[in-house]
């Protein structure tokens, strides 16, 4: 009321000339600054997507051939007289399989057999044996068996080893090429999708090496990691956020948790080596130890994410619960935690995705061992996807090169799936207040 009849200051109604030259150029500069900011951002995104495309593109280029495998299909007759039904394992599988393979190439000289059989995977007889063990009715029948070619022939079929290379520089000799051409002629060579990449465990022979061991090793490891870090992280975060008295001790803990999140993962590996293996004597290469190590790494992430999620639940919900006489733990467990859960889950999945891609700590606890059967539990020796990639990248055989890229693509696939789940959860359950 009093303000309306205040005396007018003489120089107050000063008109600004918004159309003046100075004003116009000033506005132009402001718009230009905005345009630059937008352009910088756009450039950054183009660069990031470009680099990602280069990465995935080069992996695809080297890795796509590992998703198929050259196979030969031959008829093998299983004479019941040569197989003891009570001891199927110890029949002379090698001889029976070799007879079948030789039958596909009539007129093979005795001296040529060594080179000829080297065209097929050295484990062919194990593959036939395992199939018959699973289906005993095959005994006494003549059936078609599809067996992988050995790595050099696989590479030759895929064009990685070229015909015009001088024979002394390639691992496939001229006779083998001639036999191969003859088999192609008969339509016995196929190149189907490489299911072995997903159902086989590791092997010395690239044509048989697969990721089943690494995938199940990673699964058990992540399971242990989740079971340890998720409840512990949430409990720690609830205590710090809701119960801990504010003070020097809490600040100290908080600073240390933030620091832990930034500690290089190899350090956690060393710690695990010294404590879990050294002091507690837990088994080497076990997913249990791997999971515990990765849990150390994931824990700070989950604590930080959970604390932020709890903080972002509006105070009005807490007041509403306390206001009708809920105790603190009821307010937390019935209202605050459920509302924070989507965010916590999202953060946890991203933390686990990080753990999935971690190789360094697992190398130190021996999860880079050569293990030819998938682990059946958390105490069996195992590898994990990143350490399997490490092992294959280190192997000299040509076939492992493509398989390394393929394994990286599989790992990236898992990461994309996990992150997609995280995004889905966030969008599906995100609440607006």
């Amino acid at each position, binding site marked *: *009321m009093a303000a309306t009849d205040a005396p007018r200051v003489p120089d107050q109604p000063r008109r600004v000339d918004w159309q003046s030259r100075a004003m116009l150029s000033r506005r132009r500069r402001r718009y230009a600054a905005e345009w630059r900011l937008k352009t910088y951002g756009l450039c950054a995104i183009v660069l990031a997507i470009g680099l990602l495309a280069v990465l995935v593109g080069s992996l695809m280029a080297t890795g796509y051939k590992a998703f198929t495998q050259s196979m030969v299909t031959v008829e093998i007759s299983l004479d019941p007289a040569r197989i003891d039904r009570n001891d199927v394992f110890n029949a002379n599988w090698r001889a029976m399989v070799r007879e079948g393979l030789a039958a596909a190439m009539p007129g093979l000289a005795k001296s040529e057999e060594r080179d000829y059989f080297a065209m097929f995977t050295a484990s062919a007889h194990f593959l036939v044996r395992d199939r018959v063990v699973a289906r005993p009715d095959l005994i006494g029948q003549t059936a078609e068996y599809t067996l992988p070619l050995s790595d050099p022939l696989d590479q030759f079929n895929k064009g990685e080893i070229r015909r015009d290379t001088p024979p002394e520089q390639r691992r496939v000799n001229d006779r083998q090429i001639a036999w191969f051409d003859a088999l192609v002629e008969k339509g016995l060579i196929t190149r189907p999708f490489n299911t072995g990449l997903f159902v086989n465990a590791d092997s010395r022979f690239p044509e048989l090496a697969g990721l089943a061991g690494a995938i199940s090793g990673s699964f058990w490891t992540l399971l242990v990691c989740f079971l340890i870090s998720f409840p512990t992280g949430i409990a720690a975060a609830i205590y710090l956020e809701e119960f801990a008295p504010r003070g020097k001790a809490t600040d100290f803990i908080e600073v240390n948790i933030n620091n832990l999140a930034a500690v290089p993962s190899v350090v956690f590996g060393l710690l695990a080596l010294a404590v879990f293996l050294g002091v507690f004597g837990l088994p080497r290469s076990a997913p249990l130890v791997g999971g515990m190590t990765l849990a150390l790494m994931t824990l700070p992430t989950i604590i930080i994410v959970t604390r932020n999620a709890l903080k972002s639940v509006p105070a009005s919900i*807490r007041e509403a619960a306390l*206001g*009708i*006489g809920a105790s603190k733990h*009821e307010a937390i467990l019935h209202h605050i935690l459920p509302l924070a859960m989507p965010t916590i889950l999202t953060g946890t999945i991203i933390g686990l995705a990080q753990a999935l891609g971690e190789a360094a700590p697992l190398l130190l606890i021996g999860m880079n061992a050569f293990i030819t059967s998938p682990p059946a539990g958390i105490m069996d020796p195992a590898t994990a996807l990143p350490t399997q990639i490490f092992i294959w990248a280190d192997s000299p055989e040509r076939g492992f090169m493509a398989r390394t890229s393929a394994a990286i693509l599989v790992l990236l696939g898992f990461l994309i799936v996990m992150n997609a789940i995280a995004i889905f959860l966030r969008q599906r359950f995100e609440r607006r207040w």
Partner: protein
Amino acid sequence: MDQQTCSPAVVTPAEPRIMKNKPVKISARNVKVFYGDKQAIYDLSIDIPDRAVSSFIGPSGCGKSTFLRCINRMNDTIESCRVSGEIEIDGKSIYDPSIDVVELRARVGMVFQKPNPFPKSIYENVAYGPRIHGLAGSRRELDEIVTRSLKRAGLFDEVKDRLDETGTGLSGGQQQRLCIARAIAVDPEVILMDEPCSALDPIATARIEELIDELRGNYCIIIVTHSMQQAARVSQLTAFFHLGRLIEVGDTDEVFTNPQEKRTQDYITGRFG
């Protein structure tokens, strides 16, 4: 500047008429509240009648909400907050160590400034209190409590067909009535309302005011409000707060027509605030 002229608080000029025929429900003596080093309330003493509506008015930051939150000890949740002096409900000190806060808050319900239903169904919102306090022996009893509370809050007819829809999907006024139903469901003796209509439109406000008037006969209601008209319409006792002090308290009609204090008069005539 006002704090320096720290004369002993001029409080009640004469005993309000309402106190003669209503029993005292809440009585505060020399209450002081500090947030860290900052004092928010100075030596406050007041008696609040049962089965009536009392309103706290005053400019922003005068301590009326702070005092309201002392009555159900919601201030406990603020770490830096200290309360001294005596607040008694039915003659029992609520800051006594033997008092259980959970029980106190069940007896002293609260409705907040912004409607804050739980993001759960309407039914669950109302049922939550009785459930945690174990007030219903069976599902049928719980249904009864929910229905009765919603009816008393004047919301039942609007939501009876959609009790399992989420409470946050209601309009602002309905949400606030849901919050009142939620508070009533645990059968409190006192209901504290902290500017319950400040986020509502005039029609929803009128609906809440009617409701407060209906509830008056059964509860001791305290309402903090910035609207002088609202205080005049719904309350029988009015207390005027200024800068952390209780300046004047009396029958609502007395305070509004014949204020004893100049500051009260200035405020209610809109000269400051």
